[in-house]
């Protein structure tokens, strides 16, 4: 598993890891879904394209997660899988998901936005990438 959530006193941290930066960003997005509900319960019948750009990789993680928050809120969807491509602080991605179904998904809370708190994007000594921040719920 290349993602996890981590504890914060008032909110929830989301963390992705991977062989590439793009994989770590995809993992952080899955962790954000896990802050809301069990990602395994979310289907993948619909796709949404996302593109964003930022001056640095950490700001790009915040932008990426906030773009997903916006799509989830306005389309009333949840996402389960992500295919991310990154080049020079530009991100393009496809997110697979389905319309929110309260009874089946049992969402605990909505995510209001991604924060700069505990925001880290870095390459670990073992060569793997890590991307994390706290999301406000």
């Amino acid at each position: 598993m290349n993602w996890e959530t981590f504890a914060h006193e008032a909110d929830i941290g989301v963390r992705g890891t991977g062989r590439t930066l793009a994989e770590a960003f995809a993992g952080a997005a899955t962790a954000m879904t896990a802050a809301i509900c069990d990602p395994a319960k979310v289907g993948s019948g619909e796709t949404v394209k996302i593109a964003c750009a930022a001056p640095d990789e950490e700001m790009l993680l915040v932008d990426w997660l906030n773009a997903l928050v916006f799509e989830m809120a306005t389309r009333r969807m949840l996402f389960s899988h992500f295919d991310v491509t990154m080049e020079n602080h530009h991100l393009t991605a496809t997110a697979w998901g389905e319309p929110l179904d309260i009874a089946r998904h049992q969402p605990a809370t909505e995510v209001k936005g991604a924060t700069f708190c505990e925001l880290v994007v870095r390459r670990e000594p073992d060569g793997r990438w890590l991307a994390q921040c706290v999301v406000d719920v």
Partner: protein
Amino acid sequence: MDLKSLRQRGEFEWELPMADAMRVPGVIFGSRELVAAMDEKVREQVANVAGLPGIVEASYAMPDAHWGYGFPIGGIAAFDADAGGVVSAGGVGFDISCGVRTLHTGLKLADVEAHKARLADRLFARIPAGIGSTGGIRLDAAGMAAMLKGGARWAVGEGYGLDADLLRMEEFGCVAGADPGAVSEQAKKRQRDEMGTLGSGNHYLEVQVVSELLDEAAARTFGLAAGDVVVSLHCGSRGLGHQIGADFLREMVLAAPAAGLALPDRELACAPLKSSLGQRYLGAMRAAINCALANRQIITHLARQAFAEVFPGVELPLLYDVSHNTCKEEAHTVDGVRRRLFVHRKGATRAFGPGHLELPREYQHVGQPVLIGGSMGTASYVLAGAAAAGRKTGEHAFGSACHGAGRAMSRHEAARRWHGRAVVDDLAARGILIRSSSSRGVAEEAPLAYKDVTAVVDAAEQAGLACKVARLAPLVCVKG
């Protein structure tokens, strides 16, 4: 928090002395136990806020303070535009003007007990709650602009409630200086279907009973007697406020170096009050305050409809409405000089003391009602803003008090420890009915995941921030 780093000013007031980049001292209110239990991050965040340009008097933290981002939750700081002061999107947060409103019902516990389950069902059916819920109102561009300018006043004009409601709100239901043009299209799009929705997480609507009077005279002024049934709702500016927070945090972080602001933490993102960015943020943030006021007004209307279905002819007049995450321009006396300041309250309540002209006339001799939410299984409190006798300013922390119990454990830990169904059953056995669409959501909000609200309000009273008036016990809780 290590108490050795603090200088005790009084039994319930602790000073964090100036060091490093701090421009003013930090002041933390609370009992020895509450302050000792605070995370070290709270001290770090109080100190970071104390280093922002133009800060006045002190960087304050309330007895319910906990680790936030940038500012602590329960943090208060005031800035002077003429002294290079800033406005901080991080200092207001994402859930702009999240707040509590309490309504009288004119009913007694005995009137409600036999109809409690039906009342819970009607409230849950009427009030959109939880993630993805939508309201019955769709706003076009002109309607959105009018709402963002007019707040609760707009909502009353649209038929949601009464003119008399507006007299029992901060700023009488409408904050001046809102600029819908400073609000992004994305923020407006997020709000389009969310007017009159409760939201999720710690947002709720509760039917409560006045279980104890702690100051009978003040309670009488607020219209409260033992055994009275009231309704309290906790929600904010929904998607619009969340998006404004995200938009301006990003813009302020990027603009900080050019403005000469060296931020120790990017979440302190701020801009000079005398800058185009600072002014645009103020305009957008005030629009979000109006959005929250309009939202609580519409939910009030829906609650009235639900009550009327069960108790025909019942009226639900307002006790008061308070906002938590705001930056407001206010006049305060500092070292004997009256100054216009921009007071940030992040997870804290305005709590003006007796005699303040911004209060409803009938409350002026008592002070502002301060509505403190607890958890769904414990208690909530009504306090009154206190005059700080003997202080040169006549007030504490720019007339502010705590806002709630604050979490004692992460959502992560709460969901691991409890199951929603068991929490609902336990509370039902104690006569508290929960209505929620999410079992995990209930588990994350389990009563024991919160600090002891009574210890927090006791400390707020002992520190002179506010006086206890009444304790409210939950009967029905509709969870967002």
